[in-house]
């Protein structure tokens, strides 16, 4: 499927199965984890303190699930303005480790109407460079 254009979206012309433009992120490193801890308000030390992470039985610090979910939010808002977003749901299936290069992708899985709103359900997914899905979820967007 050809990615949909970023200009205003026409509900009647969007088909189930159509893909959103991918969002490819830089490799996860310690700097982004430290900055995200401070910027997001999630100060859990397991993401920023390797000594703490090892005591907790992890090989190293690892990415906040919410960092990757923030990228999935960007996947949606680079496609349609945020005021259209009704729901954003994520299941964290695997840990995103240092060095992982994440691609966020989405595709339309359902067209539905609720009340006066025409909605699209979009499956959203983050995948690392080895093809492992780390987050699977969905977004509900009103057009």
């Amino acid at each position: 499927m050809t990615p949909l254009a970023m200009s205003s979206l026409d509900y009647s012309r969007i088909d189930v199965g159509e893909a959103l433009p991918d969002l490819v992120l830089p490799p996860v490193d310690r700097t982004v984890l430290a900055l995200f801890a401070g910027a997001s308000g999630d100060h859990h030390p397991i993401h920023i303190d390797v000594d703490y992470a090892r005591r907790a039985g992890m090989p190293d610090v690892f990415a906040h699930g919410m960092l990757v979910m923030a990228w999935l939010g960007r996947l949606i808002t680079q496609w349609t303005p945020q005021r259209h977003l009704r729901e954003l749901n994520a299941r964290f299936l695997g840990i995103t480790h240092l060095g992982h290069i994440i691609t966020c992708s989405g595709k339309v899985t359902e067209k539905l109407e609720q009340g006066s709103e025409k909605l699209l359900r979009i499956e959203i997914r983050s995948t690392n460079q080895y093809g492992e899905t780390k987050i699977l979820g969905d977004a509900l967007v009103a057009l």
Partner: protein
Amino acid sequence: MIDKKHIGKVFPLHTVEVEKSALRLFAKVIGETDPVYTDESAAHAAGHRSLLAPPTFLFGLEMSRPNAFAWLYEIGANPARILHGEQSFAYRATVCAGDVITFETHLADIYDKKNGALEFILRKSRATNQDGQHVADLATLVAHRNT
């Protein structure tokens, strides 16, 4: 095991202002370059009162309590053993810089799987703004490893 008597536990109300500098830093760190998140004139041009808070910003705002992990100790959980299992947001209105958000948070469920090897704690928050307008609902599923 985490005592299921904590189901229904109500957190202290948490009220916090959405600050422009915090939104700009959050946008920078997640790589968000759309100016509606960082530039007031662009936000106004797009019809927003001020800088727009990105979709997942409310999660960290809810955690910006004086001691974000106190509730885990209170129910007998160990913060070193938790993983984020699921996260949901349902949006009812946009949140912008200058808004003052109040979170009403409670523990909605506690259950275990694999004969107690994994426990799950479901936390739900209702977010309202300074006008009493309901802006979003958040649901966080925390997994607690017991092995």
